[in-house]
């Protein structure tokens, strides 16, 4: 039986009534022991008899055409089985939810690092040697490696509401400042990998992907076969952060080679390939204008930006996504420019939009607070609008003020002094704050829940767990709804043959897939209620027993055949009727070395309000992850492109500086109690990307408070601090 729900209106808060007591509790993730003991098999660890191994070979020009390659020479090398290029090979991964093949460029080269060929051999070592020996000849053409000077720049008028120029002219206080953020790489721990095997016309791929129902269609479309012939397994994904949203070149290359050879073929990216061939976050150039009255209330807000992408790619970093709804001000203007460049494809990287747009916005708010001599927490509190400043719709649950106030209290914000005031030897100490906001939405999602006569339950969906805790929370929801202890619930994920879920992306996974499990379990509850001849609302399920009319019956006695519930969630009217977002507040304390300009983050606190928290532990971990990304965004992470050909120069983890343990201080996460009735039937919102949204600005604002240096060009590396000290 299927329970289908379109989210058109708030739903009863059943999960506050169930009483099994497992939901929200900080349970460890059930697959954790498998992962830390190496028993969870990731895509590149799967082997098959007779498997061959391929490597991708990249373009070494930024633009032009492939005119030939020394294939016969390479074919003569030890163990080499084949070289494939052109045809169905992909230029770059599909954008998230594309549901169709990305560009298949044939002989055209659009960026330095583009996968051109796959070389397949008996062993990885043979393949790698052959890949290195493959020499590609090109007819180069003019390239545009630099977004600042690109010949083609498209302009997208975002919004022009009221008269921002006039508001700026008449403002008691105004800020007009330019900011830049560099490109970022997702840099997941697990490199992209796929093992492809054909049985007749049917293709099975073990891969590392975030959104299987789309990935099946993207892979089928890339290969020109029906989607029903494709099955993808991705039970464990070692981080995605957006780079595994869409089908990627390695899966198509492995599938092509496997078909031709009649053998399973595995293609795994080297770390350098992950940097060059998957998605980057676009660099941004931003201008923020703030106009405020004497009371600090915004009357105008402008946010303009330039981002880049390959010619023809539809994705543009949604830089101003949170600017739309976070603060008020009736005069508003946004314009986005998209420079067409020959650089690695730009796509979704963790918190697209907010991750970089909020750096500028929250930095500018700090500048306004400074100009007005008001506390930056107070300035933010004054600018929380009553209704959406553009559409006028109401907000769903929004605990921004609580996050700012409670966070400030626990952090000890009142200890904050003036720039240069606190010193410990060479170190200048400062504190900074930033709001957090991340647009919230749900996606269509399905799940199947089976309650067995032995009192166990099974959750099945093609939802992925990319390190976020999907296994834990989906099991908790089923256990809570069915009144079962956690050890009676098994969760199977990451197989495209199972009911299609939202997938993992955009922080919508927990609420969307979780709601589909909830709906499926509701269906089972209804069936039990029918068996007991009671109303759904009068049924209590707890500890393996059903209670109705003061009669307690063990589920094992009640059920003689598996009960199967199917849940199907779709977004509905609440997506439009209310402005939905997760909110929070970040606080950081940093030390700036006045000799060297080095910055060390000493402690951080973030308060988050995300509706119902499904698991305190995994939610806290998501918060930690975002905060650590924020340290990288603020201080160290930067894709360096060669000015001559646009190639990514720092394409490994020694030179692309994600934070290491010593960069990360004590992190304090506060989860504010909230229910968001408009968000989803389980009153939960996303948390993953919220943790990153704005946090880098709390660090650069703290740098300013420490030493009086305002860093507007991220990241705040020592040279930029030094230049102003």
């Amino acid at each position, binding site marked *: 039986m299927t329970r289908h729900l379109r989210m058109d209106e708030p739903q009863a808060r059943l999960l506050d009534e169930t009483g099994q007591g497992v939901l929200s509790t900080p349970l460890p993730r059930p697959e954790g022991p498998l992962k830390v003991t190496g028993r969870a098999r990731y895509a590149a660890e799967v082997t098959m008899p007779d498997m061959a191994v391929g490597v991708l070979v990249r373009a*070494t020009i930024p633009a032009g055409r492939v005119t030939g390659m020394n294939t016969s020479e390479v074919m003569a090398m*030890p163990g080499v089985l084949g070289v494939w290029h052109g045809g169905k090979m992909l230029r770059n991964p599909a954008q998230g939810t594309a549901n169709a093949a990305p560009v298949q460029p044939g002989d055209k080269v659009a960026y330095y690092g583009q996968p051109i060929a796959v070389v397949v051999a008996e062993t990885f*070592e043979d393949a*790698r*040697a052959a890949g*290195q020996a493959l020499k590609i000849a090109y007819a180069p053409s003019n390239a545009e490696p630099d977004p600042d000077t690109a010949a083609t720049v498209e302009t997208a008028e975002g919004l022009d509401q009221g008269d921002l120029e006039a508001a700026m002219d008449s403002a008691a206080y105004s800020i007009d400042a330019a900011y830049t953020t560099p490109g970022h790489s997702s840099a997941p721990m697990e490199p992209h990998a796929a093992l492809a095997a054909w049985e007749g016309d049917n293709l099975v791929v073990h891969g590392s992907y975030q959104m299987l129902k789309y990935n099946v269609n993207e892979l089928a479309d890339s290969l020109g076969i029906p989607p029903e012939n494709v099955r993808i397994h991705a039970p464990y994904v070692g981080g995605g952060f957006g780079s595994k949203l869409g089908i990627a070149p390695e899966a198509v290359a492995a599938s092509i080679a496997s078909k031709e050879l009649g053998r399973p073929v595995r293609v795994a990216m080297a770390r*350098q390939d992950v940097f060059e061939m998957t998605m980057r976050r676009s660099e941004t150039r931003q201008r923020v204008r703030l106009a405020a009255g004497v009371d600090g209330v915004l009357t105008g807000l402008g946010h303009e930006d330039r981002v880049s992408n390959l010619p023809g790619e539809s994705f543009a970093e949604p830089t101003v996504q949170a600017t739309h709804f976070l603060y008020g001000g009736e005069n508003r203007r946004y314009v986005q420019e998209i420079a067409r460049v020959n650089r690695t494809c730009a796509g979704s990287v963790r918190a697209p939009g907010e991750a970089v747009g909020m750096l500028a916005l929250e930095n500018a708010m700090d500048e306004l607070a400074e100009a007005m001599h008001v506390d930056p927490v107070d300035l933010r509190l004054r600018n929380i609008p009553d209704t959406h400043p553009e559409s006028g719709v109401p907000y769903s649950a929004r605990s921004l003020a609580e996050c700012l106030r409670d966070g400030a209290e626990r952090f000890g914000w009142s200890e904050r002094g003036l720039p240069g005031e606190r010193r410990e*030897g*060479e*170190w200048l100490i400062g504190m900074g704050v930033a709001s957090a906001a991340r647009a919230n939405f749900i996606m269509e999602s399905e799940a199947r829940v089976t309650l067995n006569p032995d009192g166990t339950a099974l959750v099945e969906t093609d939802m992925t767990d990319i390190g976020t805790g999907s296994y834990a929370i989906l099991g908790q929801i089923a256990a809570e709804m069915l009144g079962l202890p956690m050890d009676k619930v098994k969760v199977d994920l990451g197989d495209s043959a199972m009911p299609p879920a939202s997938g993992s992306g955009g922080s919508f996974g927990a609420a969307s897939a979780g709601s589909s499990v909830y709906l499926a379990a509701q269906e089972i509850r209804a069936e039990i209620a029918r068996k007991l001849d009671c109303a759904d609302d009068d049924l209590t399920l707890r500890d393996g027993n059903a209670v109705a009319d003061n009669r307690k019956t063990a589920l094992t006695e009640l059920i003689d055949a598996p009960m199967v519930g199917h849940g199907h969630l779709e977004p509905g009217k609440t997506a439009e009727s209310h402005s939905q977002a997760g909110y929070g507040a970040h606080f950081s304390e940093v030390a700036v*070395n006045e*000799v*060297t*300009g*080095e910055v*060390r983050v000493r402690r951080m606190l973030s308060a988050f309000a995300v509706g119902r928290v499904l698991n305190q532990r995994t939610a806290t971990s998501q918060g930690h992850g975002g905060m650590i990304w924020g340290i990288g965004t603020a*201080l*160290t992470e930067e894709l*360096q*492109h*060669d*000015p*001559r050909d646009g190639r990514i*120069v*720092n*394409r490994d983890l*020694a*030179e692309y*500086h994600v*934070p*290491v*343990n*010593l*960069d990360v201080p004590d992190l304090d996460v506060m989860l504010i109690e909230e229910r968001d009735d408009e968000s989803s039937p389980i009153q939960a919102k996303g948390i993953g990307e919220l943790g990153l949204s704005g946090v880098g600005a709390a660090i650069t604002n703290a740098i300013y408070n420490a030493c009086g240096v305002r860093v507007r060009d991220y990241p705040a*590396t*020592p*040279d930029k601090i*030094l*230049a102003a000290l």
Partner: protein
Amino acid sequence: MKPFDYLRASAPDDATRADATIIAGGTNLLDLMKLQVMSPDRLVDITRLDLDHIEDHEGGLRIGALVTNSDLAADDRIRRDYPVLSRALLAGASGQLRNKATTGGNLLQRTRCPYFTDTAQPCNKREPGSGCAAIGGQTRLHAILGASEHCIATHPSDMAVAMQALGAEIEIQETTGATRRVSIREFYRLPGDTPHIETVLAPGELITAVILPAPPKGRQVYRKVRDRASYAFALVSVAAIVDVQDGRIAAATLAFGGLAHKPWHDPAVDRALEGAEPTPELFDAAADVLLADAVGQGSNDFKIVLARRTMKAVLAEATGLKEAA
């Protein structure tokens, strides 16, 4: 990775006569082999040789070439008498790497220049005569001293900077079986027009030990400035050994990392300090000497300022003018 032959040396002669590339910890060579930046036909593994002892020697210490970075940093005598070396070691790489990396290998690690490690790019160090792609490219990590039009790479070691300040000697077994000792100050070469020849080692020669002189008088300081708190190469590092007597600098030796193709030591900098009273003005004058010929490449211009500031802070600490940060 290209197929290669693998031999295991059971005596030093096996290594010097093998006509092979020597591998010890492999923390650098293996990475470069996977990328085919280096593609030796033959490796000789020296890790079974009896070269992993730290012994008292001529009033100083003799450090076997196979002593790991972790063991060397933790040695009581090093910590007590040569703290600049212990601190430099611990400022380098990560715990896992230090457990494998050896003393000899650390001296010989290759540059982190990203144009060197990308075989699609011209690089005179990797492929003599092909050109230098780093010039005109991203040069944040590159040299400001002693570079040439053929190469602007930097040497990545922290350990070698401390050894440079200590005036260590390197014991080398020649292919004839004879042994010679070379001061670390003569060991490294500037790039000139042969950046692929980085040291005075002849093909086949094996580093068997590093000899530290008797512990120097005075205070020892190592300070490394980098883009993240750990596991990052130096933007600038300074090793200093300074002896102050009666309010004057009796002896000073400074060495620098992150600035040049080799761990940098300029005797004129030491001379500018010696005999004088430690003052900020004196430190500035010494920095003037150090940086007189410094040239930035654009994205590394900041190193000129950073080197001066770091050097002055280190001198202030080493002379007691100011307490440590």
